[in-house]
């Protein structure tokens, strides 16, 4: 069974600064995909970034980038130039490619301060 662990229940960052959210996962599959989702108070889960396990190059999406360490089964999210609108719950998730089942971590609440 797949498990996803987020060890930081809460993180805080000042506006314009950089923050890194941690995620580790455990899977026996060789082919899988990793995601970061953002859940603001509106409750809607929004895809931030995704990574294919077979790609060594780290994914980037504007101010968001990941550090994918396959051997360590680590998938951290870096947010650069943090903005007030980045404040939300962030969930790391894994998919083995089977159907659309995502296994989520418990989330990290990110606060952005002035």
């Amino acid at each position: 069974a797949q498990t996803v662990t987020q060890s930081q229940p809460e993180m805080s960052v000042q506006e314009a600064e950089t923050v890194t959210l941690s995620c580790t996962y455990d899977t026996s599959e060789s082919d899988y995909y990793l995601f970061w989702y953002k859940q603001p108070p509106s409750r809607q889960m929004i895809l931030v970034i995704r990574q294919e396990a077979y790609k060594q190059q780290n994914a980037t999406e504007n101010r968001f980038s990941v550090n994918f360490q396959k051997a360590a089964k680590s998938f951290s999210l870096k947010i650069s130039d943090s903005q007030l609108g980045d404040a939300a719950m962030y969930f790391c998730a894994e998919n083995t490619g089977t159907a659309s089942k995502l296994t989520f971590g418990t989330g990290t609440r990110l606060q952005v301060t002035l």
Partner: protein
Amino acid sequence: DAGVTQSPTHLIKTRGQHVTLRCSPISGHKSVSWYQQVLGQGPQFIFQYYEKEERGRGNFPDRFSARQFPNYSSELNVNALLLGDSALYLCASSHRDTAYNSPLHFGNGTRLTVT
């Protein structure tokens, strides 16, 4: 285009009752998935339907069932409600049946409270 719509937004039920939650996917999306998010936890996968067929089932009791209609909308049914069923129920749609090539688009969820 309208996003994924879920109804109702909030619901209060009594233990032992039955509940039906509804989801309309984004136009053109043929896959609908259901997730349960208990307060303070990440979402847990319940079901996926693609082209009206069940494609995946999570570790939930038989009290949970779902179906997908010819217009690709979906219902999630929960029988004999327990207090532990209180949660946010999220629906997600996608164009294809796998999560990577066809990212999931989530609705705002239905908040179910069982008293």
